[in-house]
């Protein structure tokens, strides 16, 4: 393998990995604070992508406005989902909420089919993100530069929010103990809504980025990213935001390099992700970043 080709594979891996990382952050943040695996996370990606698509297609507004609308709408939807599907179950066993999350996921997918239709829609990628640059024999699409930057910025922003702000402090308190924190004068409902709002907003950013990299929208488009990024979050140590980013990069690079070095195994790319999940669960169930830091989130 030439150096050029290896670099090309690395670029492709980082590009895919940063996308996984971006989506995994939202997953892990909601888990870290609420101990709930929000299985509808992947479907919020889908909703965000369709909102961005339709706001350009129907109202022909500029793309950056459509992205903002997609994020805001998805945040609102996330909060609404929490209020209607998770909040009534807050005192029930955790498994009940998990099943409710799976139900929400199916509801969103099937609503997607009814409202948006089953045929794939082409996502219009703004030129800014679709230009191809050739640097030292390596071809890079400009979106590849944006995704890691956005991921890192959001990661830092999130760490700041959780560790340095009052809301963040409240989030950490709620993560430790609902009842006690409400006794301490924290509006638990508000904090949980905020968590879901931020988590859904992250999903929306992920969804918009995903559809710019893979400009094809179908109502089930969130399933695979949802699963893969869940794996990334678990690998990194679910509940740990930095871990999710590491897990995402690991998964993306692993998938690409597996095919790069062993092309005969290309059909087993998805299996790689799941094997990684099984191995992590067997060897280090708390993930790479471990439980200790996860507690802090």
């Amino acid at each position, binding site marked *: 393998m030439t150096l050029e080709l290896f670099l090309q594979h690395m670029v492709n891996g980082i590009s895919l990995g940063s996308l996984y990382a971006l989506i995994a952050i939202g997953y892990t943040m909601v888990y870290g604070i609420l101990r709930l695996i929000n299985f509808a996370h992947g479907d919020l990606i889908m909703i965000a992508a369709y909102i961005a698509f339709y706001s350009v297609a129907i109202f022909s507004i500029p793309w950056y406005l459509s992205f903002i609308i997609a994020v805001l709408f998805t945040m609102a939807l996330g909060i609404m989902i929490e209020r209607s599907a998770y909040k009534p179950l807050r005192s029930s066993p955790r498994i009940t909420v998990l099943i409710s999350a799976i139900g929400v996921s199916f509801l969103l997918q099937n609503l997607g089919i009814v409202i948006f239709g089953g045929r794939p829609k082409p996502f219009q990628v703004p030129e800014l993100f679709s230009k191809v640059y050739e640097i030292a024999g390596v071809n890079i699409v400009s979106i590849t530069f944006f995704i890691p930057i956005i991921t890192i910025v959001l990661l830092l922003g999130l760490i700041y929010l959780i560790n340095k702000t009052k809301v963040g402090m409240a989030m950490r308190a709620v993560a430790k103990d609902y009842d006690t924190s409400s006794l301490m004068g924290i509006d638990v409902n508000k904090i949980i809504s905020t968590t879901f709002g931020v988590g859904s907003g992250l999903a929306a950013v992920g969804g918009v980025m995903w559809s710019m990299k893979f400009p094809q929208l179908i109502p089930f488009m969130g399933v695979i990213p949802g699963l893969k990024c869940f794996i990334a979050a678990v690998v990194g140590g679910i509940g740990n935001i930095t871990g999710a980013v590491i897990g995402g990069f690991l998964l993306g690079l692993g998938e690409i390099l597996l095919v790069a070095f062993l092309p005969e195994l290309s059909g087993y790319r*998805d299996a790689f992700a799941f094997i990684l999940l099984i191995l992590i669960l067997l060897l280090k169930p708390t993930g790479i970043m471990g439980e200790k830091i996860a507690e802090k989130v």
Partner: protein
Amino acid sequence: MMFRKRNALILLVTFLILSLIVAGCGGNKKEEPKKEDTETSEVIKIGVFEPMTNANAAGGAMEVEGIQLANDLYPEVLGKKIKLVIADNKSDKVEAANAVTRLVEKEKVVAIIGSWGSSFSMAAGPIVKENKIPAVAASATNPLVTKGNDYYFRVCFIDPFQGKVMANYAFNQIGAKKAAIIKEVSNDYAVGLAKFFSDEFVKLTGDPKSIVANVDYQTNDQEFSAQLQAAAQANPDVIFAPGNFTESALIIKQAREQGIDIPIIGGDTWEAPEFLQIGGEAVEGAVFSTFFTSEVPITKESEKFLAEYRKKYNEEPSSVAALGYDAYLVIRAAIEKAGSTDPVKIRDEIAKTKDFVGAAGIITLDENGDAVKSAVIKKVENGKFVYQATVEPSK
């Protein structure tokens, strides 16, 4: 707090009711002729199972358009109305088996049309065979759909021929000596077609090593850069990439983004508007084989089909629409000849189909239940599928 909870509940309920209304509207359209159900004996039901949602939705939708047009133009047989019962197989093999079981057991259809995608037809095969309900596939090209199954027929050619056509194109038109294959490994159609292409290409070049790379991907995959690099690394003159239209469009797009400018060719599944919309400029020059072209009407029925199709849908028909139309006509003619709605008798008449004038050519079914037909080669030019050549089966 209480107020908020109630608010949320009201929101949820509104949401659900809204979704029910929307769903209800969608359902109503399909079941419009329900009133006639009361007079069941007056209606002959033909089942249609196609991918209406998920990965292959566009293929199914186009095929159904053709079938519905045929139903509009020829709504009756034996003095009774023909009612189409459309079932969605959700682009999934398990759902395909479920959909066909429902058509057979619950809807009591006398014959079945479908499905786009050989995998789904193959999943349905044992069910139609067991229940003795004849099925006619419109565009499923894998030989295993009809092989060993007396109840499955098709109105299109099969993949050994299509693989030959594309291997010949690669060898003679592109001048390729080495080829790489990128196939959708979870799709029986793509796996079969890749094999037939390889066999013929090796025969043509006389070099058993002329297939220099062979990489796979899964249905619904969206990231292909590693596979593309692995294929390009072997330095092929052409890449053969049989698979679903959306994945294929993304493959070509990503290949061009990665600076890979090797010609990429494929099979009949590429002929969907989504291939052009998603692929955009990247798919310019992509070449594939298919069944039919609206540029060269083959029969009188083709002319009728083209005129009526343009009138009804206001666009150019795809090949699979013409084939769906033909599948319906073949079944209708068989019911007429059988003079009965007994599925076994209908099956016997379908098997005897000879020199039947369809929209996508003359249909004569061989002993396997396959139609022997010419193939058409199309190329993407200026965002449109442009007719290139016709290849006769004798070649």
